[in-house]
């Protein structure tokens, strides 16, 4: 009989697991309430109503923030490459350039679609803010690594900075999973942070190169330019920076997701232990 009595709770627990990952507190709240209701009919009605509200939960404002933010970042990324092609016509040196541009556009579209899917249904406000902050921290770390390398800074500092980004990813995956009790929510947070970091690194790296004509020119760049066949040094430097920027646009999110996955898996394993 106890099983029959708990049927409404079991149904609600199923709905919380399937539909409530984005609003874990509300799912837990409903489950806690249903255990307080002794009258069978009232218990059944309450559980069914809660299940319905989980399935049709209203979208949170965070969903719009993530989607609109990704659209703006995607448009800005495409505009940066467009501006580079307009300002340095020598960049368009052949079919290879347009293949690269098409590949870049595909990555941007993929990221925007991923952001829209990650944002709906979206996370609670605290987790969304944490994911955005972590993404910014990861981006700053990668840019600091690049700056340290280009300025010939201490190698120890470079290694330290290089290790900090993955640590942020692990910490975010752990925290989001532990707080929400759901690895799916943890990975969603990690995904949002990864996209923020990827777009931020690309926009700052490539944007700065386009504006500053790829300056400063180091000795290696001057040496390689001589045999590059590029029409001028600025075009060659911008071409190099855009290539690095596009590589970072792919690499930074991949590393962030991989490290975040480790954190989420560790938190899940700890919770199950």
């Amino acid at each position, binding site marked *: 009989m106890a099983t029959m009595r708990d049927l409404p709770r079991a149904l609600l627990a199923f709905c919380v697991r399937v539909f409530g990952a984005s*609003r874990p*507190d*509300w799912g*837990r*709240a*409903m*489950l*806690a*309430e249903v*255990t*307080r*209701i002794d009258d069978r009919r009232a218990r059944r*009605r*309450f*559980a*069914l*109503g*809660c299940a*319905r*509200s989980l399935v*049709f*939960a*209203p979208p*949170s*404002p965070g969903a719009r923030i993530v989607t609109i933010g990704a659209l703006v970042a995607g448009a800005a990324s495409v505009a940066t490459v467009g501006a580079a092609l307009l300002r340095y016509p020598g960049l368009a040196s052949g079919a290879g350039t347009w293949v690269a541009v098409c590949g870049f556009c595909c990555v941007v579209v993929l990221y925007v679609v991923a952001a829209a899917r990650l944002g709906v249904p979206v996370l609670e406000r605290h987790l969304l803010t944490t994911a955005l902050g972590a993404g910014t921290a990861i981006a700053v770390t990668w840019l600091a690594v690049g700056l340290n390398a280009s300025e010939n800074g201490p190698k120890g500092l470079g290694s330290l900075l290089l290790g900090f980004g993955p640590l942020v990813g692990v910490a975010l995956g752990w925290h989001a999973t532990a707080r929400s009790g759901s690895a799916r929510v943890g990975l969603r947070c990690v995904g949002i942070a990864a996209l923020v970091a990827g777009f931020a690194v690309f926009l700052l790296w490539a944007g700065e190169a386009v504006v500053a004509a790829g300056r400063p020119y180091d000795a290696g760049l001057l040496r390689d330019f001589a045999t590059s066949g590029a029409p001028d040094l600025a075009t060659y430097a911008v071409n190099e920076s855009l290539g690095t920027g596009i590589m970072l646009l792919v690499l930074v999110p991949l590393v962030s997701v991989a490290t975040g996955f480790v954190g989420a898996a560790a938190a899940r394993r700890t919770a199950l232990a």
Partner: protein
Amino acid sequence: MKRQRPHSEQTVAVLRALAATPSAWRYGYDLCSELNLRSGSLYPILIRLSDRGFLESAWEEAEPGRPPRHVYRLTGAGIAEAAAAGHRASPARTRPRELGTA
């Protein structure tokens, strides 16, 4: 300035119930019972009020063998919104009556 849709009759009832004792934390099921509102209607309302900053929530201390309960009360902005919603609503619309239509 962002234009917001007027609250539904059920939302106004929830705001008024919470505003009646603004410092007290309330349970979801108690609000359902008091307002004769189904949980399928109450929780989306609570979620929207929370998203808009009108509602704060907390976890009550857990009793042995039972999960902690989620409790709710209005924020300062929520109390002001409840007062404004009360002024906007006509007496006929806010009269206590059967709300459970979900």
